[in-house]
């Protein structure tokens, strides 16, 4: 009989069993009567011979072998009834589990998506990335360290010569967020990757429909004006209609034929970036990028390489061969007579091969430590929740001693009782987990948006996958065992005779007390730890908010403009872009409410461009040899950003294309190069060994302003006018009068831009304040989350303390009544109860603070100008825990003083 049938036929089997045993009993009685024993006596004797009827039944059930199914179903039904009977306990337990398991699942979902999940490619373990993937952009230098980017020439030469890889794929390290138009329709943003012809075959990503990019498309420059779409882009724009194949897609100013769609789920090798269209590297020239010469220059390094290891080749062999070939190939690029410096740099250079199966992710470098710390924090919160529930279960266990004793007397084994109580715990855990998974699904997306704010959400797939569900299941089971085991074993160890007599579990109450108290001490210790962590992050965040940015972030809008569809060619004609910018600047400046405006290469926290400079007549020192951050700006930049001029002048209409080259430098640069005099009138040029020494004249000095991030130290910076480094610079900074309506300014600016050139697209608008906030979004998020979890932890600990003291006051009602009757003062009673909580608090602090002091060191790199042993954070944590603990203890203590002695004496 299958176990399912058994489950449903339980009722019939029970009656059958009963009937069968009853028949035996009656037959035995009848036999005895027949041998001359009176019926009453016969019945009595038979009953003695039979022993425990229920025991026999239980043994019969056991021997069926599928007993567990029946008893499980029975336990679950019983458990549900028990939980329904205590709605207060059940809702608190489920709520804390939902928060605990939900938080764990949410953080793990992010951790999984960013750190753990392999790319949806064939056999991701075989993939090796050249370099550590921590670079994007381009360089023409010969780095004297581990290389991260590679040239097109190197890719082809290496691919031909190596024997370790079955294939190597190349992808341009910069993804284009550019504009695409399908069959002549309006331009829309599209994310485009330039990839080698081997890209799809090496990764093992087949086409969903049509074909992928192949070697023929990438054979010669300009050979393959074709595009492969990602499945989601194909769905969005064509609703999955295969007739899309063959359609012409215009990207910027070139046309491509859509030849295929990649398999669903594949969005490129960068986690946190989603590719819409893939285009062969052979079409690189179609993308206008100033100074970009990827195909022509053998040392122009802009590609990421990822190889598939040949079966049987070990990574160590691959590293050895790769570095040998690398040295040979790069050496051949340095020409017949390479400079000594190049040779020295190359001798220090190497290629590191790192596992590529997880893809590349800038998010990973930024978030792995914070995520791991958060994971630890939510695990501790769950632990505190477990301690709480265990405590409540222990209290319930005492209340249920009688019930347990009765069940044992009726023949239930200790194991059966323990299993039944564990089932109740598991039931709680699973209810909490189910709600937690739902919570986590929403929460992880919300967390991601909070962590990476901005107009476009970071495309990371946060749907719970197999790994996440397994994790949650594991956490749930562990949770149930953690909080369920102790109470279950304790309850099943009940000595049932005294328990039945007393009706109340006095006998086990004192040892339960010790257990409950140690749980509370643990909770207090953990809460202090979490609060110290929260305090550190909050104080670090406050420091960041207090950083002097050097610019005035109020009343400034930053527009991101895109000229890629405006057909403004780079090269000799670039000054046209500058003229266009000047027109836009003039139009917008004339708008009511606008004070000043300017185009610029960078605004803030926007990446950057830096290099060494050489000032005429000043020797290079370690201090002035550091890279200088450069920016290219319009004439109104300093007033629009609110960066004060300290000396000299800023750019004006006389600084033209062919007039002498000028620059404005910042205080730090002035101080490092000219500690004793004015820099105005001095000359410098860019680069380690510049071709035109001293071509740039310093005309002004401005105050330091933050460039890359708020955390940066004093940074040397130089600004050049747009007219002398022409190009279209996408940041347009607009300062408006205090009190002006920013929405109006935005819509008027949009109109003004469109009036000047309707092909210039306004991609998005943010206030400078938002840009500053976004730059510390990670810190703000961590501070908020740790505070939330810290408070949650203390709150849970307080519930525990409140519960314990309420219970102990209730149990001691008669004792307290006698004390009152004998003349004890309310103050004495108050102290009697509070004393207990203060002891627990002191023990908790004594354990928690040393743990906090010894473990916060791992946070050091995440804190801004703050010691991980910051006394203020520690004091705040101690004070918070103390106040909350005392508040939780106050209510039961107060209740103790309000006991009516007469009433109390009567109750017992």
């Amino acid at each position, binding site marked *: 009989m299958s176990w399912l049938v058994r489950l449903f036929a339980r009722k019939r089997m029970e009656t059958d069993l009963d009937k*069968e*045993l009853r028949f035996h009993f009656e*037959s035995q009685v009848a036999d005895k009567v027949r041998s001359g024993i009176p019926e009453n006596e016969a019945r009595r004797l038979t009953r003695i011979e039979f022993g425990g009827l229920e*025991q*026999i039944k239980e043994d*019969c059930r056991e*021997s069926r072998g599928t007993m567990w199914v029946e008893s499980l179903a029975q336990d679950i039904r019983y458990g549900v009834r028990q939980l329904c009977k205590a709605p207060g306990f059940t809702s608190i337990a489920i709520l804390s589990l939902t928060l605990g398991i939900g938080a764990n699942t949410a953080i793990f979902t992010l951790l999984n998506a960013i750190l753990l999940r392999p790319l949806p490619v064939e056999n991701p373990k075989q993939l090796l990335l050249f370099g550590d993937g921590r670079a994007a952009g381009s360089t023409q230098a010969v780095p004297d360290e581990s290389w991260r980017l590679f040239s097109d020439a190197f890719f082809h030469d290496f691919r031909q010569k190596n024997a370790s890889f079955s294939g190597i794929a190349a992808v341009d390290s910069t993804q284009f967020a550019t504009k695409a138009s399908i069959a002549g329709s309006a331009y829309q943003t599209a994310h485009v990757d330039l990839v080698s012809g081997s890209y799809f075959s090496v990764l093992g990503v087949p086409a969903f429909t049509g074909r992928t990019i192949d070697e023929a498309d990438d054979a010669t420059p300009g050979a393959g004006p074709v595009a492969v779409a990602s499945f989601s882009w194909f769905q969005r724009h064509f609703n999955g209609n295969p007739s899309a194949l063959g359609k012409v897609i215009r990207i910027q100013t070139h046309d491509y034929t859509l030849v295929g769609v990649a398999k669903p789920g594949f969005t490129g090798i960068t986690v946190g970036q989603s590719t819409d269209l893939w285009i062969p590297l052979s079409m690189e020239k179609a993308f206008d990028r100033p100074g970009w010469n990827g195909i022509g220059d053998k040392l122009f390094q802009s590609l990421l390489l990822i190889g598939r290891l040949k079966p049987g080749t070990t990574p160590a062999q691959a590293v050895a061969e790769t570095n040998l070939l690398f040295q040979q190939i790069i050496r051949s690029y340095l020409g017949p007579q390479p400079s000594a410096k190049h040779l020295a740099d190359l001798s220090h250079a190497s290629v590191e091969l790192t596992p590529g199966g997880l893809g590349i992710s800038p998010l990973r470098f930024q978030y792995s430590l914070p995520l791991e710390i958060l994971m630890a924090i939510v695990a501790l919160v769950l632990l505190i929740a477990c301690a709480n529930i265990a405590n409540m279960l222990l209290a319930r266990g005492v209340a249920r001693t009688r019930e347990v004793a009765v069940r044992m007397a009726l023949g239930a084994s200790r194991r059966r009782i323990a299993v039944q109580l564990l089932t109740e715990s598991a039931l709680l855990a699973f209810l909490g987990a189910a709600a937690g998974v739902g919570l986590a699904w929403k929460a992880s997306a919300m967390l991601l948006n909070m962590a990476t704010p901005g107009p476009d959400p970071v495309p990371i797939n946060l749907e719970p996958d197999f790994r996440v569900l397994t994790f949650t299941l594991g956490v749930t089971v562990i949770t149930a065992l953690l909080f369920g085991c102790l109470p279950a074993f304790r309850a099943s160890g009940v000595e049932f005779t005294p328990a039945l007599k007393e009706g109340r579990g006095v006998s086990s109450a004192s040892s339960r007390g010790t257990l409950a108290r140690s749980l509370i001490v643990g909770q207090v210790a953990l809460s202090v730890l979490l609060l110290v962590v929260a305090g550190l992050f909050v104080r670090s965040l406050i420091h960041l908010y207090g950083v002097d940015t050097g610019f005035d972030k109020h009343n400034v809008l930053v527009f991101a403009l895109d000229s890629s569809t405006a057909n403004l060619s780079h090269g000799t004609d670039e000054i046209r872009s500058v003229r266009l910018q000047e027109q836009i600047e003039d139009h917008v400046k004339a708008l009511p409410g606008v004070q000043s405006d300017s185009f610029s290469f960078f605004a803030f926290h926007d990446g950057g461009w830096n290099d060494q400079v050489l000032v005429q007549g000043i020797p290079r020192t370690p201090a002035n040899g550091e890279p200088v951050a450069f920016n290219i700006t319009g004439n109104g930049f300093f007033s629009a950003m609110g960066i004060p001029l300290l000396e000299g002048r800023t750019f004006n209409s006389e600084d033209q294309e062919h007039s002498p080259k000028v620059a404005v430098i910042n205080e730090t640069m002035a101080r490092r190069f000219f500690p004793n005099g004015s820099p105005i009138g001095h000359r410098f040029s860019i680069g380690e060994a510049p071709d035109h020494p001293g071509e740039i004249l310093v005309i002004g000095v401005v105050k330091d302003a933050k460039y890359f991030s708020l955390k940066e130290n004093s940074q040397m910076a130089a600004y050049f006018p747009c007219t002398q480094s022409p190009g279209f610079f996408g940041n347009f900074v607009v300062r408006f009068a205090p009190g002006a309506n920013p929405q109006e300014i935005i819509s008027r600016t949009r109109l003004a831009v469109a009036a000047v050139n309707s092909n210039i697209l306004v991609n998005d608008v943010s206030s400078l304040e938002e840009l500053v906030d976004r730059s510390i979004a990670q810190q703000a998020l961590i501070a908020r989350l740790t505070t939330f979890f810290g408070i949650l932890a203390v709150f849970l600990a307080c519930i525990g303390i409140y519960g314990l003291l309420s219970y102990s006051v209730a149990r001691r009602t008669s004792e307290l009544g006698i004390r009152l009757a004998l003349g004890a003062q309310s103050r004495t009673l108050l102290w009697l109860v509070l004393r207990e909580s203060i002891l627990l608090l002191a023990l908790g602090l004594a354990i928690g603070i040393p743990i906090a002091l010894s473990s916060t060191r791992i946070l050091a790199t995440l804190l801004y100008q703050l010691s991980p042993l910051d006394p203020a954070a520690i004091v705040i944590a101690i004070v918070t825990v103390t106040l909350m603990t005392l508040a939780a203890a106050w209510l039961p203590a107060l209740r103790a003083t309000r006991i009516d002695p007469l009433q109390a004496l009567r109750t017992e």
Partner: protein
Amino acid sequence: MKKADEKFDLPQGTLDLLIMRVVALGPIHGYAIAQRIQQMSRDALQVQQGSLYPALHRLEYKKFLAARWKPSETGREAKFYELTATGRAHLKAETESWSRLTDVVGLILKGTLEGI
């Protein structure tokens, strides 16, 4: 009631064998099985209900026995057990292995005595 010293402790699994042997004679209910074992062992073996019924249920679960409800000799409905084909095969195999075991044990026990 029997005195305790007249009873045997049955080796493990022997009860199952005895039950199957009795059931092999034809459909029979639990009470009759207990009685038959008692009679056949000339009152040396008295099977307790606490062992008999769990054993019956175990054998039924293992599909060595099948059960059917029908009126007993007294007219009351009783649960009659009978041997299934698997049960019969199992009984045969177990019986053979049992007699081999007792033969061997007996051989050794006897041999030792004669050898002294």
